[in-house]
């Protein structure tokens, strides 16, 4: 089996992204978290550099690259500002929905704006009654005179308050077996009957808005139906795997790397008993654990994405990577916090934010429980 290696252009890409992140994102990372403020100007810059439409073909204004490059971008971003990475990650869900399932008209209408980050996108599936239980959604849509009328309330939707192009799922009928059937709709902010609702005050991944979307007799044209009637569930699950979980794995990986690097820096600088902390074996074990966690998460993340890109289903591998990288991020953050002693719980240091961000990733894109069910399901079949 050949070694897992990035191409030269992927390494160049990583370097270019890192340079941007260190100059534009790192200096404001703390403030983004404290103020819970989405840095729209930075997102615009990211859009101009191709981050928002990384896997969109160049004909639509994207960078024409793939999921591996996307993961590199998310990892680099999450290394300093996981909340902002989350906003970009979620944006990609909407972008892929239109790219993969849109008609030519829909692609021509929406892709150029979302690929360049001019408009922000999001995916609205979750509801109070249907998060892990996706089929428990109650939002519904029915035809009325050449339009669709959608009613419902979505919650825990990232980019809720700043997405202009929302992909919303709703029940539109029943399938052959009498089970609820869902469809997806492109709902633009400002459309009649659609509005963002309350915003949540999250523990972590702050700087990306997460909240409700309210659909109150929201009227949209036939042209808003995305991917054909009744395909909503299949589309959503496909997006969760291809874009959602892979993105969360990359974000978890970025957080692990942040913990690793901050831990190493602290261990080298802090002097205790007359020597750098790094000389103590107990500390070395912690550093080693962080490193091992990082290596494993890195391989699982990029390997599972590579598998998916090459055509394999890779559902279990992706779920495993998401599970491992996000849970690993929580472990790495706690470990690094312990390593730093008193400094670990001073907010001037970022490790508290890493822990909060890591904890919050667990329930994004499917909880750890769901990930295990997916892995078990495939393993036992």
């Amino acid at each position, binding site marked *: 089996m050949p070694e897992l290696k990035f191409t*030269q*252009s992927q390494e*160049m*890409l990583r*370097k*270019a*992204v890192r*340079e*941007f992140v260190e*100059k534009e994102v790192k200096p404001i990372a703390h403030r983004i978290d404290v103020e819970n403020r989405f840095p729209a100007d930075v997102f615009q*810059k990211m859009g*101009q*550099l*191709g*981050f928002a439409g*990384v896997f969109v073909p*160049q004909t639509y204004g994207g*960078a*024409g*690259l793939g999921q591996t*490059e996307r993961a590199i971008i998310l990892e680099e971003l999450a290394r300093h500002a996981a909340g902002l990475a989350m906003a970009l990650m979620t944006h990609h869900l909407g972008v892929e929905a239109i790219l993969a399932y849109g008609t030519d008209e829909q692609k021509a209408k929406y892709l150029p704006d979302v690929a360049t980050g001019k408009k922000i996108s999001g995916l609205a599936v979750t509801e109070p009654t249907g998060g892990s239980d996706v089929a428990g959604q109650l939002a519904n849509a029915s035809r009325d005179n050449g339009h669709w009328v959608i009613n419902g309330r979505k919650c825990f939707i990232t980019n809720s308050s700043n997405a202009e192009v929302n992909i919303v799922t709703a029940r539109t009928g029943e399938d052959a077996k009498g089970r609820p059937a869902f469809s997806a709709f492109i709902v633009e902010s400002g459309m009649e009957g659609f509005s963002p609702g309350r915003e949540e005050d999250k523990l972590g991944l702050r700087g990306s808005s997460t909240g409700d979307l309210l659909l109150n007799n929201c009227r949209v044209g036939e042209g808003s139906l995305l991917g054909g009637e009744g395909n909503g569930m299949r589309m959503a699950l496909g997006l969760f795997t291809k874009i959602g979980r892979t993105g969360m794995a990359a974000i978890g990986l970025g957080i692990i790397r942040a913990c690793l690097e901050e831990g190493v820096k602290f261990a080298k600088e802090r002097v205790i008993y007359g020597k750098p902390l790094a000389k103590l074996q107990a500390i070395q074990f912690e550093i080693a654990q962080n490193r091992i966690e990082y290596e494993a998460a890195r391989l699982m993340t990029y390997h599972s994405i590579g598998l998916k890109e090459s055509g394999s289903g890779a559902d279990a591998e992706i779920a495993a990577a998401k599970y491992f990288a996000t849970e690993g991020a929580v472990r790495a953050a706690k470990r690094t916090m312990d390593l730093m002693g008193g400094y670990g719980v001073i907010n001037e240091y970022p490790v508290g934010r890493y822990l909060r961000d890591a904890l919050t990733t667990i329930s994004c894109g499917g909880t750890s429980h769901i990930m295990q069910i997916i892995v078990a399901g495939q393993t036992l079949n």
Partner: protein
Amino acid sequence: MGELNLVVLVKPVPDPSCYDRIEIDPATGALLRQGMPAVLNPADKHALEEALVLKERFGGRVAMVSMAPGSASETLMEGLAMGADEACILSDRAFAGSDSLATSRVLSAGIRKIGPFDLVLAGNESADGGTAHVPSQVGELLGVAHLTNVIRMEVGPGGSVTARTRIENGYIEVRGSLPMVVGVRREINTPRYTSLMGVMAAQDKPIRVWGAEDLGVNAAEAGMEGSSMRPGRLSRPDYRRKGEILKGSHEETVRRIVAILRAEGVLG
């Protein structure tokens, strides 16, 4: 005025953030540069940015020229990703040990080989050596007008140039016309970030490598043989002083400082 043929002189230098790791080999007295990754000289990025802005305005091509080992292609890719159209590496063992004038001879030969040019841009100085000689000397060797320390530059129709060069506590406003060689200071602009699209496009852009023979440069003109300057002893400057730690409370420390100031007669 038509399109511009732009040349940017670039130099890969050891990453400035690693300069604390510089060591001198105690046996040979030579510089040890092990493990220091190379980056594009920071000032050259500003020169490249200036060239890209001119290309966007007038059309044309931007060629990077660098006297460097062949392995420099990796560093030069960064410039291609920013938007340069091609890179020419002037690489030959015979060039090693060149002083600034010999380097300028090699660079001038490279520029001539590319073809007629309108403007040659360079970062004023490089982070490792920092002589700031190359823009003037390349200008002299090419027989064109040249300026160093440029902080602002405007190219008008017909190739007229108005530039500002930084001097201590002020500037000089100067007029000239293309073709010219211009050395720029970092304050002239803010280099653009590299986009993903730029990274992809860079993969297909040509990187040429030319040796002494390709350039028509003979041994007497370049390298150690072609250099008037010779390096001698290397050393690490020692600025150490007694380093007496003032102990005690903040109040006691402050009183001691004031006593020192009084003793030096600066308390006024």
